[in-house]
């Protein structure tokens, strides 16, 4: 019985145990298939020549990709998504990293309460956040009855809203790299004559950089995927890729949504690989082995 080690069972395992083990593997295999197949199935459909959302029967074509890359409706959406996600990433990474650094200092006052406030945008259902921001953006300064300026239907409004949703992820990832961070390294740097800025650049930043980069990636993905806030506070000028896909499904424009989905899946693969590499690098730097 040379297939027993494959099941992870010793050779003395009973028949009943083997049967169970086999069922277990079968069940897990089906669940993994359930997880991955819906994503993979979109890919061949995106190469279908006809305008039905089905498997290619006969002719394959890249016409939906041409539509995605050259139709203005989609290129504008991609451009908007990139602009909004770019500024969101920068703002969220800077604000979140600074806050995480401050929070990780020993005996920070009311740490748990402050942390709860900083994380709260991640927990509140996004529709509520979007509705609240819609009212707020209509007149951000309530000192006057007539609004001095309006943030609804502006890039700034969408970027600020996305920054709000993205910072909790940066705070969490950077805080995670800082746990177990040896505070005496800061003192060592300072005692050797380095000013605080140099200590930050030469000692702290290299150590927390994996956390900062994966936090930035999370921030980017948060903004890149977000659709509810854009639906509420943005206009068609701020139409992002997810919003375009949302209305694409609603109005059933064309199978271009499957091409867009395939492009985004490729992006997810890149993200996945990057985060995994960063995690390994962080563990190596902090001396954690498994």
């Amino acid at each position, binding site marked *: 019985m040379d297939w027993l080690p494959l099941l992870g069972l010793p050779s003395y395992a009973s028949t009943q145990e083997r049967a169970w083990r086999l069922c277990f593997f079968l069940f897990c295999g089906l669940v*993994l298939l359930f997880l991955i197949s819906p994503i993979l199935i979109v890919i061949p459909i995106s190469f279908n020549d006809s305008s039905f*959302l089905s498997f290619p029967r006969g002719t394959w074509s890249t016409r939906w990709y041409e539509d995605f890359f050259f139709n203005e409706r989609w290129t504008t959406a991609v451009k908007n998504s990139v602009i909004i996600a770019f500024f969101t990433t920068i703002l969220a990474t800077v*604000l979140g990293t600074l806050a995480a650094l401050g929070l990780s*200092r020993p005996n920070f006052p009311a740490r748990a309460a402050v942390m709860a406030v900083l994380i709260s*945008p991640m927990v509140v259902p996004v*529709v509520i956040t979007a509705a609240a921001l819609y009212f707020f953006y209509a007149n951000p300064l309530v000192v006057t009855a007539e609004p001095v300026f309006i943030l609804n239907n502006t890039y700034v409004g969408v970027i600020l809203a996305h920054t*709000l949703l993205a*910072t909790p992820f940066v705070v969490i990832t950077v805080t995670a790299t800082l746990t177990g961070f040896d505070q005496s390294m800061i003192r060592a740097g300072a005692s050797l004559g380095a000013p605080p800025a140099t200590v930050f650049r030469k000692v702290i930043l290299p150590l927390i950089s994996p956390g900062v980069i*994966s936090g930035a990636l999370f921030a980017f993905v948060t903004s890149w995927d977000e659709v509810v806030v854009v639906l509420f506070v943005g206009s068609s000028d701020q139409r992002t890729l997810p919003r375009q896909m949302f209305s694409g499904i609603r109005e059933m424009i064309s199978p271009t949504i499957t091409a867009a*989905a395939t492009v985004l899946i490729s992006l997810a693969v890149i993200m996945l690989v990057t985060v995994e590499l960063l995690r390994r690098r962080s563990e190596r730097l902090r001396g954690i082995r498994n």
Partner: protein
Amino acid sequence: MAIAESAHLLTIGGVPLKTQLARAERSRKLRAVALVLPLFLFVVLTFLYPLGRMFYKSVENEGTMGRLTLTSEALASWDGQSVPDEAAFAALAADLKAAQEKREAGEIAKRINSEFSGAISKFKGITRKVEAMEAGPYKEVFLGADKVWADPALWRVIKSASDTYTPYYWLAAVDLKQGPDGIERVAPDQAVFVDVYGRTFWIAGLVTTLTLILGFPVAYLLATQPARRANILMIFVMLPFWTSLLVRTTAWFVLLRTEGPLNDLAELLVDQRFEMIFTRFGTIVAMTHIQLPFTLLPIYSVMKTIPSSHVRAARSLGAGPFLAFWRVYFPQTVPGIAAGCLLTFILCLGYYITPALVGGPRDQMVSYYVAYYMNNLINFGQAAALGAVLLIITMALYWVYNRLVGIDNMKLG
């Protein structure tokens, strides 16, 4: 000896060392606070404050506030049981005239109508009448136009609607209203929200259970396989996790359609096509797929910390494989199960996009109604009250989650 001496230790500047250390400690603390302050202010000013402002809307009499000030004053000393006096009628007439000039009388009628059905037409009629009048007495005109104006119930609604604050939207959010004799249920055909909340909880609970049933064995598999094989299998979990929500919803939209690949397969196997898109079934399958990694990953990370020697010890002491698993291994995974399920349940309560795209009209959850009241009905008070109830439930669960797991222990990636 060292203690006695340290009291007199001085730094180069001649300051006692103790003072100098305290000063350094304080400045370090200040610097830490200064680092957190920008984000803290950002969150408070552009998130907590807007949330507060929105919930203010849920208790505000938006339609009538500021439009019934005279009536409000005149009704201040009214007993609530009899027909009000001429002063109250005159005040209402004056308020209606003023509102009509600004073309806002309809707003008042709409707001009263939400609590006293049929009021819109009565208000329209009387507004037209009093507009033509220069001076009173108004009471006869009102009573002459319709005997409803002698109904104290209508006046009670007018009185409560002319206040600055109202419990109306909050009561409506749980299918209650203020009747003539206190709080009562709304008519069964208007009672929708309790059903919506029930549905939201039911869907969230079902999805959480399904993700646990599907996720637990896979987490166990990943935690017990050799590292190399586990890493490969992990891709199956992490790729969906990193794929955009819209992409996954698109995928299910394509899959579930009547002409979609799943139905192609069904036709091949059982020669029949099933209705899956825009159904409860479709919503639950898609949500389970999206939430599965969120339940699975916390369970997996707890399982990774359970030494395999525990089960081996139990086996060597004579326990069968199932007893060893159930009595020794499973209890240790409970914290992971609690963390994963609670996270999924909290996230499910706020679902909007997926039910909106693959669900039918009977599968929409609370978030959908918040958006619907905001964008389609422009009834901000009701949207805010619905959102507030959802937020309170979510926050209570978040508090439990924080106590059980600790939000900063959350694992990402």
